[in-house]
């Protein structure tokens, strides 16, 4: 397994753990459960997979190409979802003259990160499976 694959699996695991933590805490503390998204900070350990060990090639041109394509797919999905949410969901929930709570803005940053990285990681793993 390449370093890129390991990082993709790690990202998916961290995202899953974060979402499960939010889901488990929500019945008890309500929207404050979104604080569990702070577990996404573990994603900061992802670069450790790219440590160079002896003469082993950590990342080559194929890995870079796969990463680039995956990032493009992740960003495209994020943008479509973001536009849909901002254009239709927000006015429906908060009303045309309503205001968006500050916490929603804060959470949206984490959920945007989760969406982007989740899709990117999945796209990475699918591309490696296809060869």
């Amino acid at each position, binding site marked *: 397994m390449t370093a890129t694959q390991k990082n993709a699996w790690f990202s998916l695991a961290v995202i899953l753990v974060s979402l499960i933590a939010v889901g488990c805490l929500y019945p008890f503390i309500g929207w404050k459960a979104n604080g569990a998204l702070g577990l996404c900070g573990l994603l900061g350990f992802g670069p450790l997979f790219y440590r160079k060990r002896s003469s082993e*090639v950590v990342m*080559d*041109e*194929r890995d870079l190409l796969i990463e680039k394509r995956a990032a493009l797919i992740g960003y495209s999905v994020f943008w479509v979802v973001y536009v849909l949410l901002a254009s239709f969901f927000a006015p429906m929930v908060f009303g045309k003259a309503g205001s968006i709570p500050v916490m929603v803005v804060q959470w949206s940053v984490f959920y945007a990160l989760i969406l982007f990285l989740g899709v990117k990681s999945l796209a990475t793993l699918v591309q*490696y499976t296809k*060869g």
Partner: protein
Amino acid sequence: MAGKDRTELSNQIRRFRFENNEMTQQALATQVGVSRQTIIALESGKYSPSLILALKIAKSFNVRVEDIFQLVDES
């Protein structure tokens, strides 16, 4: 209207590996500076190398690029 022409790339990397003292995929990968997974993807035709990588592979076998990589028209 003509059918969709697709030009694919075939290669003889596996043959040249065996002809060069049965070089392993890892040995070739280390020689040209890529991972073994990339060599596997190249040999199975699932990945087309960059020009630099193709030249490095040809140089490692001491042959021309055209001897290793060939264009295949799929009309």
